[in-house]
Protein backbone atom coordinates (compact mmCIF):
# COMPACT_ATOMS: atom_id res chain seq x y z
CA UNK A 1 0.00 0.00 0.00
CA UNK A 2 1.51 3.33 -0.98
CA UNK A 3 1.96 6.03 1.65
CA UNK A 4 -0.49 8.38 -0.06
CA UNK A 5 -3.15 5.70 -0.09
CA UNK A 6 -2.75 4.89 3.59
CA UNK A 7 -2.80 8.58 4.56
CA UNK A 8 -5.99 9.13 2.60
CA UNK A 9 -7.51 6.04 4.17
CA UNK A 10 -6.87 7.29 7.72
CA UNK A 11 -8.16 10.80 6.93
CA UNK A 12 -11.40 9.40 5.57
CA UNK A 13 -11.71 6.99 8.49
CA UNK A 14 -11.28 9.86 10.96
CA UNK A 15 -13.87 11.98 9.11
CA UNK A 16 -16.43 9.21 9.09
CA UNK A 17 -15.98 8.65 12.83
CA UNK A 18 -16.85 12.31 13.57
CA UNK A 19 -20.45 11.62 12.54
CA UNK A 20 -20.66 8.64 14.91
CA UNK A 21 -19.74 10.70 17.98
CA UNK A 22 -23.20 12.31 18.09
CA UNK A 23 -25.23 11.01 21.01
CA UNK A 24 -28.59 9.47 20.11
CA UNK A 25 -31.68 10.95 21.69
CA UNK A 26 -35.14 9.60 22.11
CA UNK A 27 -38.42 11.47 22.63
CA UNK A 28 -41.30 9.94 24.57
CA UNK A 29 -44.71 11.56 24.33
CA UNK A 30 -47.58 11.16 26.74
CA UNK A 31 -50.80 12.90 27.71
CA UNK A 32 -50.82 14.73 31.04
CA UNK A 33 -51.96 18.06 32.49
CA UNK A 34 -54.46 18.53 29.66
CA UNK A 35 -51.77 18.52 27.01
CA UNK A 36 -49.22 16.35 25.24
CA UNK A 37 -45.96 16.20 27.13
CA UNK A 38 -42.69 15.23 25.47
CA UNK A 39 -39.50 14.20 27.21
CA UNK A 40 -36.28 14.00 25.19
CA UNK A 41 -33.35 12.15 26.77
CA UNK A 42 -30.19 10.42 25.56
CA UNK A 43 -31.19 6.96 24.36
CA UNK A 44 -30.20 4.55 27.13
CA UNK A 45 -31.94 1.74 29.04
CA UNK A 46 -31.67 3.69 32.30
CA UNK A 47 -33.41 6.67 30.71
CA UNK A 48 -36.28 4.51 29.50
CA UNK A 49 -37.08 3.67 33.12
CA UNK A 50 -36.52 7.30 34.10
CA UNK A 51 -39.20 8.42 31.63
CA UNK A 52 -41.68 6.24 33.50
CA UNK A 53 -40.62 7.78 36.84
CA UNK A 54 -40.90 11.32 35.47
CA UNK A 55 -44.35 10.58 34.21
CA UNK A 56 -45.24 9.14 37.63
CA UNK A 57 -44.16 12.35 39.36
CA UNK A 58 -46.15 14.48 36.90
CA UNK A 59 -49.23 12.31 37.34
CA UNK A 60 -48.94 12.38 41.12
CA UNK A 61 -48.71 16.19 41.32
CA UNK A 62 -51.42 16.61 38.72
CA UNK A 63 -53.76 14.43 40.78
CA UNK A 64 -53.05 16.34 44.00
CA UNK A 65 -53.67 19.72 42.35
CA UNK A 66 -56.73 18.58 40.44
CA UNK A 67 -58.32 16.97 43.47
CA UNK A 68 -57.68 20.02 45.68
CA UNK A 69 -58.94 22.38 42.94
CA UNK A 70 -62.14 20.38 42.40
CA UNK A 71 -62.78 20.20 46.13
CA UNK A 72 -62.17 23.92 46.65
CA UNK A 73 -64.52 24.79 43.77
CA UNK A 74 -67.19 22.41 45.01
CA UNK A 75 -67.07 23.56 48.66
CA UNK A 76 -66.26 27.17 47.70
CA UNK A 77 -63.62 27.04 50.40
CA UNK A 78 -60.35 28.57 49.30
CA UNK A 79 -58.06 27.89 52.24
CA UNK A 80 -55.04 25.99 51.05
CA UNK A 81 -52.25 23.93 52.49
CA UNK A 82 -49.07 22.28 51.27
CA UNK A 83 -48.46 22.50 47.52
CA UNK A 84 -51.75 24.36 47.06
CA UNK A 85 -50.68 27.04 49.52
CA UNK A 86 -47.42 27.57 47.58
CA UNK A 87 -49.36 27.81 44.33
CA UNK A 88 -51.86 30.21 45.93
CA UNK A 89 -49.03 32.51 47.06
CA UNK A 90 -47.66 32.49 43.52
CA UNK A 91 -51.11 33.50 42.25
CA UNK A 92 -51.16 36.49 44.61
CA UNK A 93 -47.76 37.57 43.25
CA UNK A 94 -49.09 37.63 39.67
CA UNK A 95 -52.29 39.40 40.76
CA UNK A 96 -50.12 42.17 42.25
CA UNK A 97 -47.92 42.30 39.15
CA UNK A 98 -50.95 42.85 36.91
CA UNK A 99 -52.99 45.17 39.17
CA UNK A 100 -55.45 42.34 39.79
CA UNK A 101 -56.06 41.72 36.08
CA UNK A 102 -54.65 38.28 36.68
CA UNK A 103 -56.57 36.24 39.22
CA UNK A 104 -56.82 32.53 39.96
CA UNK A 105 -60.53 33.32 40.29
CA UNK A 106 -60.75 34.49 36.66
CA UNK A 107 -61.94 30.92 36.11
CA UNK A 108 -65.30 32.13 37.54
CA UNK A 109 -65.62 34.01 34.21
CA UNK A 110 -63.83 31.51 31.95
CA UNK A 111 -66.16 28.75 33.13
CA UNK A 112 -69.19 30.85 32.22
CA UNK A 113 -67.86 31.05 28.64
CA UNK A 114 -67.56 27.25 28.63
CA UNK A 115 -63.81 26.79 29.19
CA UNK A 116 -62.06 24.42 29.26
CA UNK A 117 -64.12 21.67 27.69
CA UNK A 118 -67.15 23.45 26.21
CA UNK A 119 -69.96 23.83 25.22
CA UNK A 120 -68.96 27.43 24.56
CA UNK A 121 -71.21 30.50 24.79
CA UNK A 122 -70.89 34.23 25.42
CA UNK A 123 -72.51 35.38 28.70
CA UNK A 124 -74.61 38.56 28.72
CA UNK A 125 -72.97 41.89 29.62
CA UNK A 126 -74.97 41.99 32.85
CA UNK A 127 -73.75 38.54 33.79
CA UNK A 128 -70.11 39.46 33.02
CA UNK A 129 -70.43 42.59 35.19
CA UNK A 130 -71.92 40.52 38.00
CA UNK A 131 -69.07 37.97 37.80
CA UNK A 132 -66.28 40.59 37.85
CA UNK A 133 -68.03 42.16 40.85
CA UNK A 134 -68.13 38.76 42.54
CA UNK A 135 -64.38 38.27 41.95
CA UNK A 136 -63.73 41.70 43.40
CA UNK A 137 -65.81 40.85 46.49
CA UNK A 138 -64.45 37.27 46.67
CA UNK A 139 -67.99 35.93 46.44
CA UNK A 140 -69.27 32.76 44.71
CA UNK A 141 -65.93 31.93 43.11
CA UNK A 142 -64.38 29.29 40.89
CA UNK A 143 -60.62 28.84 40.99
CA UNK A 144 -58.01 27.56 38.53
CA UNK A 145 -54.25 27.78 38.89
CA UNK A 146 -53.70 26.31 35.43
CA UNK A 147 -51.83 29.45 34.30
CA UNK A 148 -48.73 28.36 36.21
CA UNK A 149 -49.51 24.99 37.86
CA UNK A 150 -48.34 23.18 34.72
CA UNK A 151 -45.06 25.06 34.96
CA UNK A 152 -44.76 24.15 38.63
CA UNK A 153 -45.23 20.47 37.79
CA UNK A 154 -42.65 20.59 34.96
CA UNK A 155 -40.18 22.16 37.43
CA UNK A 156 -40.73 19.32 39.92
CA UNK A 157 -40.30 16.73 37.15
CA UNK A 158 -37.09 18.49 36.08
CA UNK A 159 -35.88 18.33 39.69
CA UNK A 160 -36.33 14.57 39.53
CA UNK A 161 -34.16 14.43 36.39
CA UNK A 162 -31.48 16.46 38.17
CA UNK A 163 -31.68 14.19 41.24
CA UNK A 164 -31.05 11.23 38.95
CA UNK A 165 -27.96 13.00 37.65
CA UNK A 166 -29.32 13.62 34.15
CA UNK A 167 -27.16 16.22 32.43
CA UNK A 168 -29.13 16.60 29.21
CA UNK A 169 -32.90 16.64 28.73
CA UNK A 170 -35.79 18.59 27.30
CA UNK A 171 -39.15 18.40 29.04
CA UNK A 172 -41.91 20.08 27.07
CA UNK A 173 -45.53 20.29 28.23
CA UNK A 174 -47.36 21.82 25.29
CA UNK A 175 -44.80 24.58 24.85
CA UNK A 176 -44.02 25.16 28.53
CA UNK A 177 -40.57 23.69 28.68
CA UNK A 178 -37.26 23.32 30.43
CA UNK A 179 -33.98 22.78 28.57
CA UNK A 180 -31.60 20.91 30.87
CA UNK A 181 -27.95 21.16 29.86
CA UNK A 182 -27.11 20.92 26.19
CA UNK A 183 -28.15 18.49 23.48
CA UNK A 184 -24.83 16.86 22.78
CA UNK A 185 -22.39 19.64 22.00
CA UNK A 186 -24.95 22.30 21.13
CA UNK A 187 -27.74 24.14 22.93
CA UNK A 188 -31.37 23.05 22.63
CA UNK A 189 -33.03 24.67 19.62
CA UNK A 190 -36.60 25.84 20.15
CA UNK A 191 -39.02 27.55 17.75
CA UNK A 192 -41.86 29.85 18.83
CA UNK A 193 -44.93 29.07 16.76
CA UNK A 194 -46.61 31.74 14.66
CA UNK A 195 -50.28 31.99 15.73
CA UNK A 196 -51.62 31.61 12.19
CA UNK A 197 -49.13 29.53 10.22
CA UNK A 198 -47.79 26.06 10.79
CA UNK A 199 -44.66 26.63 8.77
CA UNK A 200 -43.79 30.05 10.22
CA UNK A 201 -42.06 30.83 13.46
CA UNK A 202 -41.89 34.09 15.39
CA UNK A 203 -38.39 33.34 16.63
CA UNK A 204 -35.88 30.52 16.90
CA UNK A 205 -33.77 30.41 20.04
CA UNK A 206 -30.93 28.32 21.46
CA UNK A 207 -31.26 27.68 25.19
CA UNK A 208 -29.48 25.83 27.98
CA UNK A 209 -30.49 25.36 31.64
CA UNK A 210 -33.41 27.72 31.30
CA UNK A 211 -37.19 27.64 30.97
CA UNK A 212 -39.52 28.96 28.29
CA UNK A 213 -43.29 29.30 28.13
CA UNK A 214 -45.75 30.76 25.63
CA UNK A 215 -49.33 31.99 26.04
CA UNK A 216 -51.41 32.52 22.94
CA UNK A 217 -54.93 33.20 21.74
CA UNK A 218 -54.77 30.44 19.12
CA UNK A 219 -54.65 27.14 21.01
CA UNK A 220 -57.78 27.24 23.13
CA UNK A 221 -60.53 29.34 21.65
CA UNK A 222 -63.91 29.37 20.00
CA UNK A 223 -65.50 31.72 17.50
CA UNK A 224 -68.78 33.52 18.13
CA UNK A 225 -71.52 33.72 15.47
CA UNK A 226 -70.12 37.16 14.62
CA UNK A 227 -66.69 35.61 14.00
CA UNK A 228 -65.07 37.01 17.14
CA UNK A 229 -62.34 34.85 18.63
CA UNK A 230 -62.83 34.14 22.35
CA UNK A 231 -59.83 32.52 24.00
CA UNK A 232 -59.05 31.14 27.45
CA UNK A 233 -57.31 34.12 29.11
CA UNK A 234 -59.60 36.61 30.88
CA UNK A 235 -58.96 39.94 32.58
CA UNK A 236 -60.65 39.50 35.95
CA UNK A 237 -61.37 43.24 36.19
CA UNK A 238 -63.27 43.43 32.87
CA UNK A 239 -64.42 39.85 32.36
CA UNK A 240 -63.17 40.05 28.76
CA UNK A 241 -60.20 38.78 26.76
CA UNK A 242 -57.21 41.13 26.85
CA UNK A 243 -56.47 42.54 23.37
CA UNK A 244 -52.83 43.64 23.69
CA UNK A 245 -51.15 40.55 22.23
CA UNK A 246 -51.72 37.36 20.28
CA UNK A 247 -48.70 35.53 21.61
CA UNK A 248 -46.40 36.12 24.60
CA UNK A 249 -43.27 34.06 25.26
CA UNK A 250 -41.11 34.41 28.34
CA UNK A 251 -37.67 32.99 29.19
CA UNK A 252 -37.10 32.53 32.94
CA UNK A 253 -35.18 30.40 35.43
CA UNK A 254 -38.16 28.18 36.22
CA UNK A 255 -41.05 26.99 34.07
CA UNK A 256 -43.50 28.15 36.73
CA UNK A 257 -42.19 31.71 36.40
CA UNK A 258 -42.07 31.59 32.58
CA UNK A 259 -45.59 30.16 32.53
CA UNK A 260 -47.06 32.61 35.07
CA UNK A 261 -45.39 35.62 33.46
CA UNK A 262 -46.51 34.63 29.94
CA UNK A 263 -50.13 34.73 31.13
CA UNK A 264 -49.61 37.86 33.27
CA UNK A 265 -47.88 39.77 30.44
CA UNK A 266 -50.75 38.76 28.15
CA UNK A 267 -52.88 41.01 30.38
CA UNK A 268 -50.48 43.96 30.23
CA UNK A 269 -49.63 46.60 27.58
CA UNK A 270 -46.11 46.66 26.10
CA UNK A 271 -44.79 49.64 28.11
CA UNK A 272 -45.72 47.96 31.41
CA UNK A 273 -44.12 44.68 30.31
CA UNK A 274 -40.94 46.49 29.26
CA UNK A 275 -40.55 47.86 32.81
CA UNK A 276 -41.40 44.62 34.58
CA UNK A 277 -39.21 42.35 32.48
CA UNK A 278 -36.22 44.57 33.24
CA UNK A 279 -36.87 44.20 36.98
CA UNK A 280 -37.45 40.47 36.72
CA UNK A 281 -34.64 39.90 34.17
CA UNK A 282 -36.89 37.79 31.95
CA UNK A 283 -36.54 38.09 28.15
CA UNK A 284 -39.90 38.48 26.38
CA UNK A 285 -41.21 37.99 22.85
CA UNK A 286 -44.53 39.61 21.90
CA UNK A 287 -46.66 39.30 18.79
CA UNK A 288 -49.79 41.40 18.22
CA UNK A 289 -52.84 41.70 15.95
CA UNK A 290 -51.02 44.12 13.63
CA UNK A 291 -48.48 41.41 12.80
CA UNK A 292 -45.76 43.15 14.85
CA UNK A 293 -43.14 41.19 16.75
CA UNK A 294 -41.49 42.87 19.75
CA UNK A 295 -38.40 41.57 21.54
CA UNK A 296 -37.75 42.84 25.07
CA UNK A 297 -35.19 42.47 27.84
CA UNK A 298 -32.56 40.62 25.85
CA UNK A 299 -34.65 38.13 23.88
CA UNK A 300 -32.40 38.66 20.82
CA UNK A 301 -29.42 37.28 22.72
CA UNK A 302 -30.99 33.83 22.55
CA UNK A 303 -31.67 33.96 18.83
CA UNK A 304 -29.24 32.06 16.67
CA UNK A 305 -29.56 33.96 13.43
Amino acid sequence: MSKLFSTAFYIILALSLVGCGEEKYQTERFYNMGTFVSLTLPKTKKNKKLTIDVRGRIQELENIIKKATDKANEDKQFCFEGIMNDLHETGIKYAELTDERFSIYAYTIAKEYGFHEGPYRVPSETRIKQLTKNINNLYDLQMDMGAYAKGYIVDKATDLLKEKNVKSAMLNAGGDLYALGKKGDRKWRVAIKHPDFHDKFLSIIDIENIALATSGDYERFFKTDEGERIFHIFDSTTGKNPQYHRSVSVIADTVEEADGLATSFFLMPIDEIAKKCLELKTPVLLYNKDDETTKLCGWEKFENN
Partner: protein
Amino acid sequence: MKITKFDIIVICLLIIIPLFYIAHQPNGNKKLFLISGNEKKEIQLKDQIIKLNNGDVVIEVTKDGARFIENNCPGNICVKTGWAERCGQTVACVPNRLALVIECEKEAFDAVSR
Protein backbone atom coordinates in the same frame (compact mmCIF):
# COMPACT_ATOMS: atom_id res chain seq x y z
CA MET B 1 6.85 7.89 -4.53
CA LYS B 2 4.70 7.18 -7.53
CA ILE B 3 0.95 7.52 -7.49
CA THR B 4 -0.62 4.70 -9.38
CA LYS B 5 -3.97 4.76 -11.14
CA PHE B 6 -5.23 2.38 -8.50
CA ASP B 7 -4.39 4.88 -5.72
CA ILE B 8 -6.40 7.60 -7.44
CA ILE B 9 -9.42 5.36 -7.90
CA VAL B 10 -9.34 4.27 -4.25
CA ILE B 11 -8.94 7.83 -2.98
CA CYS B 12 -11.83 9.03 -5.16
CA LEU B 13 -14.05 6.23 -3.89
CA LEU B 14 -13.13 6.96 -0.30
CA ILE B 15 -14.13 10.59 -0.76
CA ILE B 16 -17.27 10.00 -2.81
CA ILE B 17 -18.81 7.22 -0.70
CA PRO B 18 -19.04 9.21 2.57
CA LEU B 19 -20.28 12.30 0.69
CA PHE B 20 -22.97 10.23 -0.95
CA TYR B 21 -23.94 8.82 2.42
CA ILE B 22 -24.11 12.27 4.05
CA ALA B 23 -26.13 13.74 1.16
CA HIS B 24 -28.78 11.06 1.40
CA GLN B 25 -29.87 11.51 4.98
CA PRO B 26 -31.55 14.94 5.05
CA ASN B 27 -34.36 14.12 7.46
CA GLY B 28 -33.69 10.54 8.18
CA ASN B 29 -36.90 8.69 7.50
CA LYS B 30 -40.14 10.43 8.26
CA LYS B 31 -42.57 8.51 10.45
CA LEU B 32 -46.17 9.26 11.38
CA PHE B 33 -47.49 8.42 14.82
CA LEU B 34 -50.97 8.55 16.27
CA ILE B 35 -50.93 9.25 19.98
CA SER B 36 -54.06 8.22 21.78
CA GLY B 37 -53.87 9.02 25.49
CA ASN B 38 -50.86 6.98 26.56
CA GLU B 39 -50.51 4.83 23.48
CA LYS B 40 -48.28 5.65 20.56
CA LYS B 41 -48.91 3.80 17.32
CA GLU B 42 -47.05 4.15 14.06
CA ILE B 43 -49.17 4.72 10.96
CA GLN B 44 -47.92 3.95 7.46
CA LEU B 45 -47.50 7.09 5.36
CA LYS B 46 -49.63 6.04 2.39
CA ASP B 47 -53.03 7.11 1.05
CA GLN B 48 -55.60 5.89 3.55
CA ILE B 49 -58.53 6.98 5.70
CA ILE B 50 -58.58 5.98 9.36
CA LYS B 51 -61.75 6.06 11.43
CA LEU B 52 -61.69 6.04 15.21
CA ASN B 53 -64.27 6.26 18.02
CA ASN B 54 -67.06 4.70 15.91
CA GLY B 55 -66.40 7.09 13.05
CA ASP B 56 -66.53 10.29 15.13
CA VAL B 57 -62.87 10.87 14.39
CA VAL B 58 -61.62 10.61 10.80
CA ILE B 59 -57.97 10.91 9.82
CA GLU B 60 -56.75 11.33 6.25
CA VAL B 61 -53.26 10.01 5.56
CA THR B 62 -51.12 10.52 2.45
CA LYS B 63 -47.51 9.69 1.67
CA ASP B 64 -46.50 13.15 2.97
CA GLY B 65 -48.52 13.51 6.16
CA ALA B 66 -51.88 13.33 7.87
CA ARG B 67 -54.73 15.49 9.15
CA PHE B 68 -57.96 15.22 11.09
CA ILE B 69 -60.88 15.67 8.71
CA GLU B 70 -63.55 14.98 11.31
CA ASN B 71 -63.44 15.22 15.03
CA ASN B 72 -66.17 15.52 17.60
CA CYS B 73 -64.26 17.66 20.08
CA PRO B 74 -65.47 21.15 21.00
CA GLY B 75 -63.96 24.01 19.00
CA ASN B 76 -62.67 21.51 16.43
CA ILE B 77 -59.26 23.19 16.55
CA CYS B 78 -57.39 20.11 15.33
CA VAL B 79 -59.44 19.93 12.10
CA LYS B 80 -58.78 23.63 11.49
CA THR B 81 -55.07 23.12 12.15
CA GLY B 82 -54.72 21.11 8.96
CA TRP B 83 -51.86 18.86 7.93
CA ALA B 84 -49.02 17.42 9.98
CA GLU B 85 -46.36 17.08 7.32
CA ARG B 86 -42.99 18.32 8.49
CA CYS B 87 -40.53 16.88 10.97
CA GLY B 88 -41.59 17.54 14.54
CA GLN B 89 -45.02 18.83 13.57
CA THR B 90 -47.92 17.91 15.85
CA VAL B 91 -51.64 18.26 15.32
CA ALA B 92 -53.35 17.67 18.63
CA CYS B 93 -56.94 17.29 19.64
CA VAL B 94 -56.56 17.84 23.34
CA PRO B 95 -60.16 17.23 24.53
CA ASN B 96 -60.19 13.66 23.23
CA ARG B 97 -56.48 13.10 23.78
CA LEU B 98 -55.53 12.40 20.19
CA ALA B 99 -52.52 13.71 18.34
CA LEU B 100 -50.79 13.16 15.01
CA VAL B 101 -47.03 13.54 15.21
CA ILE B 102 -44.41 13.47 12.48
CA GLU B 103 -41.06 12.27 13.77
CA CYS B 104 -37.80 12.26 11.85
CA GLU B 105 -34.32 11.13 12.78
CA LYS B 106 -33.07 14.65 12.34
CA GLU B 107 -35.46 17.42 13.27
CA ALA B 108 -35.06 21.14 12.66
CA PHE B 109 -36.03 22.02 16.25
CA ASP B 110 -35.89 20.17 19.54
CA ALA B 111 -39.20 21.71 20.58
CA VAL B 112 -41.87 24.17 19.47
CA SER B 113 -43.33 26.53 22.05
CA ARG B 114 -46.96 27.45 21.45
